[in-house]
């Protein structure tokens, strides 16, 4: 028990590590605020492209989505972070993470939004078009609002996964929460910072998990 407190819940160590952890937390927040909207916007583009009539565009979209869903995100990140500099493209740690996350999360968001668009009955589109709305207006004002509402649980679930995934940015030395925790652990030679980082993730993400659980159970009740 004493070893547990000394090794895992050591307040002296925590006090030392706190500034590093806090800086890491802000970086994780910043990263989340960058990659979630970027990925969502990319996903929207992917989903819209998959509704076009052109066979080639749709085939290209399926190819893109399957390709980037087949790569583990960490593999993609390493390719971007270590491979691109050989092409004289230097993005820095944050840029590499942003690009790798964009490729990865836009495929997932794209799949979800595509399913949402497909769940809107065709009659909605036809009715909107027949009232004189253009294709673009129909998409923006009639189809998308219903599409997004139909897939809200999946969107939240994916967003949760993306936030958790930001922890892999530690591998390319972006000083986010996990990286900060490991650095603090190395400095203090104590595991408390890692446990503290885990607790920070837990406190921030638990509400999202609970919300998701509620949605999932409501969905089942509907069936």
């Amino acid at each position, binding site marked *: 028990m004493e*070893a*547990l407190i000394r*090794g*895992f819940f050591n307040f002296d160590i925590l006090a030392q590590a706190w500034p590093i952890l806090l800086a890491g937390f802000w970086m994780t927040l910043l990263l989340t605020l960058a990659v979630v909207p970027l990925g969502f916007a990319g996903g929207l583009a992917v989903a819209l492209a998959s509704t076009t009539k052109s066979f080639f565009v749709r085939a290209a979209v399926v190819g893109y989505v*399957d*390709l980037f*869903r*087949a*790569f*583990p*995100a*960490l*593999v993609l990140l*390493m*390719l971007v972070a*270590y*491979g691109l500099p*050989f*092409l004289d493209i230097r993005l820095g740690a944050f840029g590499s993470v942003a690009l790798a996350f964009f490729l990865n999360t836009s495929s997932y968001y794209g799949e979800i939004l595509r399913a949402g668009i497909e769940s809107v009955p065709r009659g909605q589109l036809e009715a909107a078009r027949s009232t004189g709305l253009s294709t673009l207006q129909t998409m923006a004002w009639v189809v998308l609002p219903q599409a997004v509402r139909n897939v809200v649980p999946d969107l939240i679930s994916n967003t*949760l*996964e993306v936030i*958790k*995934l*930001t*922890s*892999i940015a*530690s*591998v390319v030395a972006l000083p986010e929460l*996990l990286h900060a925790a*490991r650095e603090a*652990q190395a400095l203090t030679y*104590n*595991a408390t910072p*890692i*446990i503290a*980082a*885990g607790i920070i*993730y*837990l406190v921030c*993400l*638990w509400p*999202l*998990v*609970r919300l*998701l*659980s509620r949605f*999932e*159970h409501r969905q*089942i009740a509907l*069936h």
Partner: protein
Amino acid sequence: MGRFADTFLNWAVMAQYAPRILEGTWVTIRLALAVAIAGIACGLFLSVLRAFRFRAINVFIVFAVDVLRALPPLVIIIAFYFALPALGVRMSAWVSTWLALSLVLMAFSEEIFWAGILAVPRGQWEAARSTGLSFLQTLRDVVLPQAVRLTIPPLTNRTIAITKNTALGAVVAVGEILYQAQSAYSFSYNPSPLLLGAAAYLILFIPVVCFGRWIETRFAWKR
């Protein structure tokens, strides 16, 4: 173009490190299978345990599942590998990765199985019990067969997503594909091994992603 090929598709480097990457591929396959089997089996067990509705046990299950869903898998792996030794618990990198990912898959699959069990109409329980089947017989022979069918698409997708996380093992030096590719890259200072590793992931996971797509349409919930 010649320089590009020399840098990214350097046959000499690729030929030198291909056996390592092949070795890594086997490690990835073994790790992924071990995670899938342990995670799904434990998840099913927990969901069945939850069906008995013992209050204390269920509170504990919900808590554990929430924690495992809120924490990034990489944080769990790093906590097992770098923090637990402070308590005298030492696991190899392989075991840390396997255990962490299995626990995460257990949490997700428990939620999915539990949702499936709840989705079976109450009338099925009541009818089965009134024919004289015991609680366990009802669960095993009536409810679970219907529940499991409903859970196949989400479970397949979740299992694929979590087995891709085997790449996270590279961070604690499990000798899987990404680790082999990364260390080959460091030795040769040439990104060709990274590309070779990426190709290995694509060969492994594109069929799996397509399989997931097929399962989704094959077992789609009829509305």
